Structure formats: C-alpha cells, structure tokens
C-alpha cells in the first residue's frame, strides 16, 4: 500500500497532465468525471493532481519530522536508562515537561511562535516528539540491563558505550521502530490539522490539510474537494499501520 503512495507522489507529474496550482476559472467545481477523476476545486484545479502532489509533501514532512526525534530520543532514552543517576533525572524531567502539555497544543504553540512554513513544522514536531521515543527506549533498556548477558559483557570488560550502542539499543529499538511507523500517521494528521487551522503550509500548496480546510466552505456544492484529501489521509494512515505490523515481523530475529 505504501509503495503505491510513494510511487504516486513521485510520479505525480507524469500521472497527471494538469498543473496542480494554476487556476482555471472555467472549470470550477466540476464533479468527478473521466477527465477529472476527483473533480475540480473552487479554483478549477484538478483535485486528483493536487492529492498526488500533496502525498509527496505530506510524506516528506512525515519522514523528516520523525528522523531527528527518533534518533535523538532513542539515544537519550538508552543512555538515561542504562546510566541512571542524574542523567536519567535530567532526561526524565525534560520528558515530564513536554508531557504536561498536550501534543497538538504544544506544536501549535511552537508553530504559532515561529510562523508557518515547512521547516517550522519540522522543528515543532521534532522538538516535541522525541520524548515518546526516549521513554519507550528507556523502558526497554531499564528492563534489559538487568538481564544476565549485560552482566556477562561487563565482566568481559566491554565499555559502557559498546554495551549501550551495540547490544542494548539494537534490542530496544525494534519496538520503537514499530511505534515510529504508526507515529507517521500522527504526524500526517498533525500537519493536516495545522494546515486546516491555517498554521501550516500556505496556499496554494496542495497539502491535504489545507485542501480540506479550503474545501470546507463549499462542501455542499463540491464535496469532493474536501473529501478526497480526507480519504487520502485515511489511506496513508492505514498504509503506515500495516507497515508497522510488517516491520515487527521483519525485525524479529530468528528464534525470538
């Protein structure tokens, strides 16, 4: 499913001869038809094309927004879990601070402060989401560090870093990766929400949330303009959750 999406976004220019952005007032609000599979929106733009281009944007944001929090959060969590002591206290108190405020509220606040735009969305999401991975990985590490193989490796004189990076992390990360896949859904929805609220990307970018927001006003006359991007969000969500499930199986090492 995901491959379809990725393919669609990459091949958008090829798949559609329409330009996603230029307006054509002659073709306003046409219902879905063979020449416009998803119909057109109030500016005459082909909705299908816009959804395709939008998939590229949302996917890109989703991936970029999560790489940093994942890596940083995982390492922070692992170190906090293994070393304990004041490092753990510092990291966990930071986590507490971010947990105190609901995710979306925090992201909105940051974006409102920094201003709309893609980079700022990435920063906002990254700054808030790392705690989730930190907590996950820390939990796994806390549990694993009492397993006997860690004691054996310590007795063998392996350095702390070697134990954390080459042994504990690879064992703690798979659950985090699975979570990552479903987190993408959250990011897409957040981006769309931000777009809906007018805080995300600016028009005329074909971002799904933006499209839903714009299409909201004429939902009775041209429901497809808002509904199609909505379906696209749903599709993306399902695709990523399935990916997460598949990842869990793939990452399981023989014998586990």
């Amino acid at each position, binding site marked *: 499913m995901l491959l379809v999406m990725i393919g669609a976004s990459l091949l958008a220019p090829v798949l559609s001869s329409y330009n996603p952005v230029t307006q054509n007032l002659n073709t306003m609000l046409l219902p879905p038809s063979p020449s416009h599979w998803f119909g057109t929106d109030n500016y005459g733009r082909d909705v299908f094309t816009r959804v395709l281009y939008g998939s590229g944007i949302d996917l890109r944001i989703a991936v970029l927004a999560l790489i940093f929090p994942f890596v940083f959060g995982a390492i922070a969590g692992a170190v906090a879990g293994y070393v304990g002591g004041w490092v753990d206290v510092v990291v966990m108190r930071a986590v507490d601070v971010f947990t105190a405020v609901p995710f979306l509220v925090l992201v909105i606040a940051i974006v409102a402060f920094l201003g709309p735009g893609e980079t700022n969305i990435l920063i906002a999401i990254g700054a808030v989401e790392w705690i989730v991975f930190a907590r996950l990985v820390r939990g796994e590490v806390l549990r694993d560090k009492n*397993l*006997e*193989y860690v*004691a*054996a*490796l*310590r*007795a*063998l*004189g*392996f350095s702390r870093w*070697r134990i954390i990076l*080459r*042994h504990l992390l*690879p*064992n703690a990360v798979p659950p985090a990766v699975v979570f990552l896949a479903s987190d993408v859904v959250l990011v897409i929805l957040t981006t769309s929400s931000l777009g809906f609220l007018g805080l995300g990307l600016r028009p005329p970018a074909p971002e799904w949330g933006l499209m839903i927001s714009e299409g909201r006003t004429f939902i009775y006359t041209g429901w497809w303009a808002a509904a199609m991007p909505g379906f696209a969000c749903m599709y993306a969500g399902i695709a990523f959750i399935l990916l997460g499930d598949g990842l869990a199986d793939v990452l399981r*090492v*023989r*014998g*586990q």
Partner: protein
Amino acid sequence: MPGPLLSVRNLVKHFPLPRSPLDVLRRAAPEAVHAVDGVSFDIARGRTLGLVGESGCGKSTLGRCLLRLYRPDEGEVWFESVDLARLDEHGLLPYRSRMQVVLQDPYSSLDPRQSVGSALLEVLTVHRIGTPADRWERVARLLAQVGLRPADARKHPGEFSGGQRQRIGIARALAVGPELLVADEPVSALDVSIQAQILDLLLDLRASLGLTMIFISHDLRVVRYLSDEVAVMYLGKIVENAPAAELFARPRHPYTLALLSAIPEVGETPKAMVEIQGEPSSAVHVPSGCRFHPRCPWKVERCTHEVPQLRELAPGHWVACHEATA
C-alpha cells in the same frame, strides 16, 4: 611455592535500602541488606572452590564482587599480588581477561539479537586476541571445544536449547583465555540429564585448560562433584570451609549438617542427622551473635551475643561455631 591465585580478606558488601522522606525526617537508622558480611578465603591455582548456601546467603553477591561487577564496600580481593577492590574500571581492564563468569539463566545470558559467532568474534576483537585473519578460526575452535559445531556460529541464541546456550556462554567465557572461572549456578536452570552433560564439560575443560574455578551453587550434590574445597555460607558469612572429602565425611557446623540431611538423595536414604525448623532470618535485621542461632539445635546462651570466628578444628577444616568440636 607460589601463593594462592585468589585471596579474599574481610569482604563486605551491603545494599542500602531506599529510605522514604519520612524515614529521613524521623531520623530512622538507615537499613541495608547485609549481603556479604566479612568473608575471607584463599584459592590455590588450579583448585576449585565450591561456594554453597541457600538463597539469600550472599554467594552470588560474593561471586559478583570477585568479578568486580559490584564494588566491595570493605575488604580486599587479592588476585596474585594486586588488590582488585582498590582498582578503578580502567585499572581493572587487564584483569578482566584473566577472570570470567558463567551465569545461571541460559535464556538471558546471551544477546538474543547477535549471532553466536559474531558474539564470540566480538569478544576476541575487543580483547585484541589473534589477528583479524584468524579470528573466525578461533571462533570455530571455541565452539568445538564446548561440543558445538562450527556451523552453529551463524545461528542466533533463540535457535538453541538451554543446555546448548550454556555451552555458548562457557565458550564466551573461555574466549579470553581466563585463569579463573566463576560459575554462578551454571546448571541450576537445566534439566537433570543436561546438567550432567554440562558438569562433565566443565570437568573436562578444567582439566585441559588448568582452570581455577569458583563454583557457586545451592545444590550440594553438584558442588561435591566438581569441588576440591567447599565453603558453606549462611546470611553473608562463611560458616564452614574444608576440603571437599573432609567436609562431606565429617561436617562440623550444624547448618552444614542440616543441609546434608536435607538433600534428597538418590542413593540409600541417609539417616536423618539434623532437622532444623523455621526460615532463614532477614538479611536486613541480622540476628545478634551467631546468625544461625534462631534455628540452631545446639544453641547455648553464648550464641546469642557472641559472634563465632572461624577456628581450625582439623587441618584445613575451619568452622565458625562455639559448640562445634574437633
């Protein structure tokens, strides 16, 4: 004549219990689990010491202190002429390859995500043993030494049975070529027929590699099979220490007698020698005087307030009991 390989003097390790803020306010005395409370013994090179006791006696903690997985609170651990208790992590590094450990649980003693071969290879690499070119060959030889096949190197721990995993753990310990091997209940989690296989493996390896061993177990029968000397522990102290044959033939401490009479024997039923009641006392609130006195059938008044010291009642046979006689 060279001195003992390992010499332990007055080793102490306590684990403080967490105190709630209320305790601090009430100025309650800090409490600790007295896991190891003044243990001393020697092991000569090439000999095997069996450390025996029931749960809570401190034998595992003692083993980990020797390997410096815990830092002793007090006491000395002389490895040849160096006191390991004084060294920091950096100073310990060269000694880490001279003493190794085999642990109890075959299911958690190996990294589940690492193939067996790469785990062994990693040990060799970290300790810079051999050259990159010949390391895989060494891995194959290690596996063969413990009764596995070189082809097993590609597999992951989950693909092996419990007994095989213990063999891998032993191979990992031997990879660095240690002189001292601490085995902490290495067969307790295994089925009886597999236990016997692993015990024989340890016996063979010990002979062919000239290992000095500390064998920790709660099972006296297993300890008897492998040990030259046996030390019996109770609530953090050694109560009896003697050559194996002597200890089993002429046990002197009432706790040792109780342990021996409690063993379910496959051989002819032994006469019931000593029956003790009750449970071991808490390791936090240790009984005054002799720690065994609440359960001891030989108890006299002296035992409740005077701590018995280890006395040599027969050559090489040390007993910590006021009432024991030669």
